[in-house]
């Protein structure tokens, strides 16, 4: 009898174990590729960041020298300061604009709600090369609207003069992502139960009060998501300035204009891969730390639900 019980126990254990393993089988295909294009490259990146390419001797182990050098590299800090300034201004302006639009759409007080929704989301699907080409040519003083405007008004404004280039890039980025973020906010607002509004109305709450006490709290979760993705995106600023630098002359875009441009130029035109890897790692750490600070709350809530 003992052996029978044991056998049964063993069998149920086997079934349980198989059930435990099956999850891994589902994940395996993704995990294999993930390891190959995420984990290995990150490990390899850390490894090569400890080497320098010397004219004599080739790849030489230099320990943490690349990182030390980086801390004193003015070109690096110049780029970091620029994307930081850019992020601090562009992200709030864009998100506030998106939020106002979402609230306006959700208030049902607009004509053509559907039209506004579709039109503002369309730019999200436009590749960076096309959006930069359009905006670059359209705003430019050589072929674009400012050629005509300057001529008509006798002014001499150039949206791609060094002091304005970053603003023009912000106009392009806002164009791409404002509608996308607006739809995220709009979806959150749509999920608010209409009973809540009716109850508020019975209690005599007016429009602004409803916005403040019902709608704004409903936007909190999506605000966390949009802030994180916007910060990650703007810290990685690369496509627009890279393409613009080849389109417009004297725009003030150097090859270290943003950290990503600096990394790209160091690695692929200067063949200083070790130093570039160190730079990319530092930027990744900064980005992840900031993303996590914003994320901690949202992530904890999600984990608790499961």
């Amino acid at each position: 009898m003992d052996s029978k019980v044991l056998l049964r126990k063993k069998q149920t254990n086997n079934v349980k174990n198989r059930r435990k393993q099956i999850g891994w089988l589902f994940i395996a295909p993704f995990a294999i590729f993930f390891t190959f294009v995420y984990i290995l490259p990150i490990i390899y990146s850390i490894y090569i960041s400890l080497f320098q390419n010397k004219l004599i001797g080739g790849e030489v182990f230099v320990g943490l020298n690349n990182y030390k050098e980086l801390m004193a590299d003015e070109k690096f800090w110049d780029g970091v300061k620029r994307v930081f300034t850019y992020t601090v201004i562009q992200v709030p302006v864009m998100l506030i604009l998106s939020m106002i639009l979402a609230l306006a759409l959700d208030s049902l007080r607009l004509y053509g709600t559907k039209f506004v929704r579709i039109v503002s989301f369309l730019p999200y699907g436009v590749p960076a090369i096309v959006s930069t080409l359009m905006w670059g040519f359209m705003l430019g003083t050589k072929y674009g609207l400012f050629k005509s405007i300057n001529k008509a008004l006798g002014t001499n404004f150039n949206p791609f003069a060094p002091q304005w280039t970053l603003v023009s890039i912000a106009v392009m980025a806002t164009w791409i992502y404002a509608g996308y973020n607006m739809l995220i906010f709009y979806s959150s607002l749509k999920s608010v139960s209409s009973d809540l509004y009716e109850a508020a109305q019975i209690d005599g709450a007016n429009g602004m009060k409803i916005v403040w006490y019902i709608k704004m709290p409903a936007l909190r979760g999506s605000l966390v998501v949009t802030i994180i993705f916007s910060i990650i995106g703007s810290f990685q600023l690369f496509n627009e300035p890279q393409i613009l630098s080849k389109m417009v002359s004297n725009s003030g875009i150097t090859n270290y204009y943003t950290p990503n441009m600096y990394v790209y130029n160091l690695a692929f035109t200067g063949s200083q891969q070790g130093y570039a890897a160190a730079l990319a790692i530092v930027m990744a750490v900064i980005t992840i730390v900031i993303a996590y600070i914003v994320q901690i709350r949202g992530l904890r809530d999600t984990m608790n639900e499961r």
Partner: protein
Amino acid sequence: MKANNKQTLYTITNPRKSNLMTFFAFLFCLYSLLPYVWLFINATKTQRDFASTFGLSFGSRFALWENIVSVFTYHDGIFIRWLMNSVFYTVVSTVVSTLLAALAGYALAKLHFRGKNIVLLIILGSISVPGIALAIPQFLLFSKMGITNTPWAVLIPSFVSPFGVYLMWIFSAQSVPTGLLEAAEIDGAGPWRTFFQISLPLLAPALVTVFLFAFVSVWNNFFLPLVMLKDTNLYPLTLGLYQWNLMGSSAGGSGEMIQNLVLTGALLTIIPLIIAFLSLQKYWQSGLSLGAEKG
């Protein structure tokens, strides 16, 4: 607005329309639409008109058709090659990445296995890893394996979409009832059969959403092919347009001005996306709303 709501009284669920708010919303629409209008108008111009006439008025001649023909025949039809490359890269990697994401996201939401929370944390964390931090070591590893400057170099990294897994994880948790899975197990269905016959049909709308997001990100990808590909015959459209634009740019190039072709090519590049957007709106909406709810 509810269908049975026939009252003339304005309420919160049926408020009076505001002209002022509509006006500002349409200003924003103008901002959104202006570049397309500009692009379309300028794709109809000859190179000479592009350089000399006002940006928002048509040129002396309506040359759109002529430009389209030139785009497709320039340099022995290299644009068609780029178009085919873009279609190939996008379709293959989007199908693969959606499938991988569906399996992984489903497992994370509905199956039990050791180390699940760690896997989940790693995948969520990897969403915030900047692409460029990966691109250099990926390039170096791929070049050691001899696959840079081949389609594999663009395809393999696009197979992996942590954001897709994240979406599938949330979708699976919401739209696949655990009770149904337990019932299937009691009836003797294995986990694979349960997945393909019960869960996957429930996840169909989610698959479309994840597919769309992956499609746009691969179709629009610029940085990865820029790093990985040298041979212009392997370029996707984005990189091809970049190269055409370089040719006529003021900052270094052969000096041959083909901006009319660049702009017409740009117009042709975004038309498939605009169609996909307009026809599949409801899937975008559901992806965005789930992404928003669960941050």
